[in-house]
C-alpha cells in the first residue's frame, strides 16, 4: 500500500493539544493510548452531570472546526434535555474542502481521541448512538477507526454501561461515496439515511430534528477530538490558549506555494504572516506572495498586504474573509488568478448537489464563462457578468455551498480585476505567455 507521507512537519510555534500523542509509537492501540491519559476525559465526564459537561465545553470557547465556527457547547445545549425520541451524535469526517486535510491526521494518528470525544458528546446530550461519517476516499482511515472502535468495545469504553457508569453508547463508522456536499450537515444527514445528499430546509435545525427526525448534534472531527483534553484540563485552560471567544488550538494545513507544506497545530489567533514566514518557511522558490486562501477554497482570498490578520474566526470575518476549515493555501506571484478562479469554480460546479437553481445553474455558468475567458475568448462584459452572477448566488441558495462558490469568486474578481483585464488586452493568458506558469494547464474541463 502506498504511503501517505506524514504531513506533520513540526514547528517550534506549535502548541500540542490535539497532537500531543502524535509520534508515540503504537498510540493508535488502545493500551498505549490509555497509558497516555487516554479516556481520562471520558472518566472525568462520567463523574459530572451532562449539563456540567456542556457548561465546561461552552466555557472552553471551542468553536466548530468544520468551517462555520459555531460554539460547540452552545450547539450541544440546543438539544432538548427530555426527548421521547432517541438522540444522535454524528461526527463529520467528510473532509472535502479543497485545501483541507487535517481531520485525516487526527484519525490516522490518534483514533481513540476522536472516539473518546464522540462518547463524551453522547453523554453530554443523552445520546446512545453515534456515527462517524467518513468520506469514501478515506477507506484506510475507516479501517483504522473500525479497529479502534472494536478495541474500545472490548475494553468497555463503548457499549453498555460504560465504565460502570450506567451510560450506554454505540458508535459506528459510515462511509460516504464521493460528494463534497455531504459535508454540509443536513445533506450529511440525508446521506446517512441512505438518500441523495440534498440539504434540508432549516429551521428546524438538526439539534431538534436531525437524523431520522431525532435530535442530533453534528461536529467536525477536530472539534470532537478537542473535547477530551477540555474535560481533562478544564474549559478555562483551553480558552486561555486562544484569543477571546476563540478557544484553543487548531490544525492548519498549509499547502500551495509554500516551502514547508504540512499540518501544524497552532494557537488560535496566530497572525497569518507568522504562519507563512516562521512556520511554513516562506513562499516556495523564493518567490513573492500573491495571495492566500485562509481557510479552504470557500473563503475569500487575502492579498499579500492583508496577511497580518490574526488567524481566528472573528478577526478574519472582520476583514471580509473566514477561518473556515483551516486549510491555508498560498499562491505565488506567477499564478494566473483567472485560472485559479476557474479551477475553484470547476470544483463547485462538479460538487453542487443540483437541488437549487442559483447554485446548480450559477456554478455551471461561471465555470463555463471562466473557462472561455481564460481560454482567450473573454470579452469586457464578462467580468461584470461573472461578478453579477456570483452576487445572484450569494445568500440565495438553500445551503451554503452556493455562498462557498460565490465568495472566493467575488473576491478574486474584485481584488484581481486587473488580471482579467490583462487577459483581454493581451488576447491570451499573460502568465502562460510569459511561460511563468509552471506546468499548470487548463486540462479537460469535463464536469462529470
Amino acid at each position, binding site marked *: 500500500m502506498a504511503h501517505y507521507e506524514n504531513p506533520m512537519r513540526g514547528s517550534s510555534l506549535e502548541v500540542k493539544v490535539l497532537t500531543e500523542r502524535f509520534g508515540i509509537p503504537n498510540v493508535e492501540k488502545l493500551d498505549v493510548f490509555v497509558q497516555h491519559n487516554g479516556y481520562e476525559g471520558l472518566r472525568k465526564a462520567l463523574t459530572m452531570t451532562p449539563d456540567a459537561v456542556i457548561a465546561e465545553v461552552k466555557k472552553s470557547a471551542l468553536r466548530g472546526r468544520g468551517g462555520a465556527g459555531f460554539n460547540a457547547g452552545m450547539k450541544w445545549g440546543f438539544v432538548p434535555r427530555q426527548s421521547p425520541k432517541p438522540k444522535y451524535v454524528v461526527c463529520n469526517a467528510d473532509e472535502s474542502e479543497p485545501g483541507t486535510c487535517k481531520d485525516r491526521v487526527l484519525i490516522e494518528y490518534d483514533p481513540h481521541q476522536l472516539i473518546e470525544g464522540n462518547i463524551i458528546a453522547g453523554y453530554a446530550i443523552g445520546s446512545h448512538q453515534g456515527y462517524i461519517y467518513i468520506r469514501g476516499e478515506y477507506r484506510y482511515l475507516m479501517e483504522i477507526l473500525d479497529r479502534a472502535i472494536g478495541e474500545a468495545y472490548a475494553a468497555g469504553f463503548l457499549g453498555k454501561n460504560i465504565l460502570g457508569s450506567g451510560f450506554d453508547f454505540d458508535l459506528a463508522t459510515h462511509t460516504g461515496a464521493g*460528494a463534497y456536499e455531504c459535508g454540509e450537515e443536513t445533506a450529511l444527514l440525508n446521506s446517512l439515511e441512505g438518500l*441523495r445528499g440534498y440539504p434540508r*430546509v432549516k429551521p428546524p435545525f438538526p439539534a431538534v430534528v436531525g437524523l431520522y427526525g431525532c435530535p442530533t448534534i453534528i461536529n467536525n472531527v477536530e472539534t470532537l477530538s478537542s473535547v477530551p483534553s477540555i474535560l481533562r484540563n478544564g474549559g478555562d485552560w483551553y480558552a486561555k490558549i486562544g484569543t477571546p471567544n476563540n478557544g484553543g488550538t487548531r490544525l492548519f494545513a498549509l499547502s500551495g506555494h509554500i516551502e514547508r507544506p504540512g499540518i501544524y497545530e497552532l494557537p488560535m489567533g496566530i497572525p497569518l504572516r507568522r504562519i507563512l514566514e516562521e512556520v511554513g518557511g516562506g513562499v516556495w522558490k523564493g518567490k513573492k506572495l500573491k495571495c492566500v486562501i485562509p481557510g479552504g477554497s470557500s473563503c475569500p482570498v487575502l492579498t499579500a498586504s492583508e496577511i497580518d490578520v490574526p488567524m481566528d474566526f472573528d478577526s478574519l470575518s472582520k476583514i471580509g474573509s473566514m477561518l473556515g476549515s483551516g486549510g491555508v493555501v498560498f499562491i505565488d506571484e506567477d499564478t494566473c488568478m483567472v485560472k485559479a478562479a476557474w479551477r475553484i469554480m470547476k470544483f463547485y*460546479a*462538479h*460538487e*453542487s*448537489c*443540483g*437541488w*437549487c*437553481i*442559483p447554485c*446548480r*445553474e*450559477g*456554478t*455551471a*455558468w461561471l465555470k*463555463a*464563462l471562466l473557462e*472561455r475567458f481564460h481560454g482567450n475568448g473573454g*470579452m469586457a*462584459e464578462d467580468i461584470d*457578468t461573472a461578478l*453579477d*452572477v456570483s452576487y*445572484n448566488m450569494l*445568500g*440565495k*441558495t*438553500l445551503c451554503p455551498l452556493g455562498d462557498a462558490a460565490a465568495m472566493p469568486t467575488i473576491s478574486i474578481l474584485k481584488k484581481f480585476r486587473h488580471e482579467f483585464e490583462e487577459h483581454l488586452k493581451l488576447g491570451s493568458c499573460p502568465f502562460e505567455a510569459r511561460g511563468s506558469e509552471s506546468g499548470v494547464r487548463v486540462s479537460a474541463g469535463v*464536469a*462529470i
Partner: protein
Amino acid sequence: MADPITLTIDGKPVSVAAGTLLIDAAKQVSVEVPSFCYYPGLSLQGACRMCLVSIEKMPKLQTACTTVVTNGMVVHTETPEVKNARKSMLEMLLTNHPLDCPVCDKGGECELQDAVFRYGAAETRFLETKIHEDEKKFSNLVYYDRPRCILCYRCIRVCDEGMDVNAYGIGFRAAHSEIIPNRGEHLECEECGMCIDICPVGALTSGTYRYKTRPWELTYTGTICNHCGDGCKTTLSVRNHEVIRANNRDHSGINGEFLCVKGRFGWDFVNNPQRLTLPRIRRNGKQEESSWEEALSLTADKLKSILAAHGPDSVAVVGSNRTTNEENYLLQRFSRTVLGTNNIDHHRTADFSSLVGALTAAKATDRYATMENIVGAKHIFLIGNDPTHQHPLVAYQIRQAVRQHGAQLYVISQGDIKLRRQAARYLQVQLGGEAAVVSALVGASALPNNLIAGGSEAFGAFAESLKSAVDLVILFGDAIRGDEVRTMVRWGLSMPGETRFAPLGDYANSRGAADMGMLPGNLPGYAPVTDESARRKFESAWGQATPISSGLHIKAVAEGIEAGRIKALLVFGSNPARTFGLSKSTLAKLELLFVAELFSTETAECADVVVPATSFAEKSGTFTNTFGQVQALKKTMRKAGTKSDLEILLALARLLGHKWSYQSADDVLREIIALVPGYAIALPNLLIGRAVATRPEGTPPPLEKPDLIFSSRDNLFGSGTLSRYSWALNSVDEARKPYGHEF
C-alpha cells in the same frame, strides 16, 4: 384552535391561522409570490428560490414557501433586491433551457414563460454552450425533455406522495441532474399522467397530445369523466369537434388536481373511428345501415304489435350505468308509462338501495358520506374494494387523509391491495368472506372458521383497534349487500361521533341509475312501485298510470326470454350479453332486440335495430357519483349521425303516441328536482360546477337476489366497452398486467 397570526405583507395587514406558510398568507391579500417548486399539499423543497422575499430583521432574503408566519412579521415582496433575485433566478434557469417555446406543447400555458414575462430576464447574458440531452420516451403516454426541465421535483412528489407509486427519481448530479424513470429507460406506473399536468414547463409531455395543437386554439369545457363512479371533473379540450386532451385545468372539482389514467387519457374512445354513426337494421339475418327515421319507426311498429299481442310485460328494458340521470329518468318513465311495464333493470354494482333503506329506517339520512368526507376523515374503514383499481380518486383521497393529517385506515379485503401500505390495520379475508367478517365484527354472528388470515387473533386485534375510531367513514364494496348493509349501518351508527357511509359502485352513473328508479321494484327515489302515494305523485305529473306490481329483475328477464314470455328487449348503453352472459341463442329468441350504443358490442351484434348514441362528450345532463353527489355534464362537441338517449326516447315516445313536453335535459332535471326524493338540489350550485350532495330517503323493497349486485372488478385501465375502444388505455404495458398488480 390557536390564535390567528397577524403580519404585514407589502403594507397590507393580514391574519392567518398559526402554521400558515408565508407564500399562502400572501395570497390572502392578493400578493403574488412566484414559485415553481412550491405546490400546495406536497412536501416543501425550497429548491427554485423564486419565492425569495424580504422580511424585516432578517439579514438575508427568505423563501416564502418554507417560512412559517409569525406575529408582527413585516414582509416586502417588491423591493429592488427581491425583484432582482427573481429576475436572476429566471436568467439562470434559462441558461440551459432551450427557447423552443414556439413548438413546445406548454407554450402559452407555461409557468416559466409567464414568469419571464412578468419578472423580466428575457434577454440573457449567457454565451456558453447549453447542455443538451435528447428527449426520452418514458412510456407511450409520457415523454421527457431534460433541457426544458427546471427540476422543481413536482413530478417526483406527486408520484410519490400523491400516488404512492414512486416511479420517478433523480439521476446524476449538479447541472447534469435529470428525472429518471423506475425501469431503466422507461416508466412502469399507474400512468395517471399527473406528472404531465403538474409540470410547470414542457419537460413532461403527453404522448397523446404532444405537437398536436396550440393551447389557445382549443375550446375548454369542464365536464365529468365517464369511467368510474368517483365523478372526477375533467376539462375536455376540443378543436374542430375533436377532443384533443383532457386535464383538470382549474382544479375546481372534487378531485382537485387529480385524474387517473382513464380520466386523463381514456376519453379517446370518443374519437374512435369504430364509433357507430348510422343506425342499422337487421334484414334477412344481416345488419344493414339505415336512416334514423326508418330505424325508429321500425322499432315503434314492432313494439306496438308486440304490446298488442302479448301485453306490456312481454317487453323488458335494460338501462345503463353511464348515461345521464335525465336519460335514466326518462327511460324508466318510458318503460313504466309508454310501455307500461316495471321490467326495467341495469347492472347493479353496489347496493345503494339497501343503504337508503337502512339510513331511512334509522332516521340518519344525514350520514351519506361525500368525497370531501374522505379527505377530512380521521378514521376510514374500507371493506371489500380495491380503490386503487376501482376508485382511483377514493384511493388518492384516502392517501391524502393519511399523509396530511394522519387518518387511520382500517381495511378488510380479500387481496393484498395497495392501500394496505397506508392502512393502520389490515385484515385479509377469504374470497366472499367480507360479509361474514363484518357481521362477526358488529357482533351479529359468530366468526366462521378459516375465513381470516391470522385467525381469531388477527380478528380480535382488528376489532379492538376499530373500537377507538370516531367519526368513521365506512366505504363498502359489492360484498356487503342486502341485510348485511342494514347490520353494518346499525353498528356504524352506534359508534361514537358521526359515522358516514358510502357504497362503492362501478361506472360513472351507477348511483344515478339506482336513484332514478331504473329498477323493477322501485320508482325514482326508492319508493316501492307498490307504494300508492308515491306512484300517484309521478302518475299525476306524467298524466298517466303506472304498473302497480314489481317487474322482473334482469336474471328473471333472461329466463323470461328463454321461456318465450319476453318478446322484446330494449337496451340502452349496456351490454347484457357480456355482463349477464345472455347468449346469442337466447337473444335470438327475441322478436325485437333494440340497442342504443356507441360501439357494436356483443349485444348490438345480435340486435334487430342498433342506433348510434352520443357519448358523454356530446351531451349535457347530470351524473351522480357513487357518493350521491350530482354534477353537471356539459356538451363539448357534436358527433355527426348520433343522437342522445334523450332524443331517442323522445322520438320513440312520440312514435308510440305519447306527447312529452321536454325540450332539453334541463327540463328533465327540473322535474327530477321537483319529484325525486333527495334530489331537491340547488340548480345554481350545479351550474357553477359544484358537486351537489343528495340525501335520498325511502323504503325500497328488499333485495330480490344477492347476486344481482356484483362489481365488474375493472382494473385501473378498464371500464367495459368504453375502455375497450380507448387507444391510450390499451397502449400501455401496465394494462396487460394481471388485476391487482402494484406499481
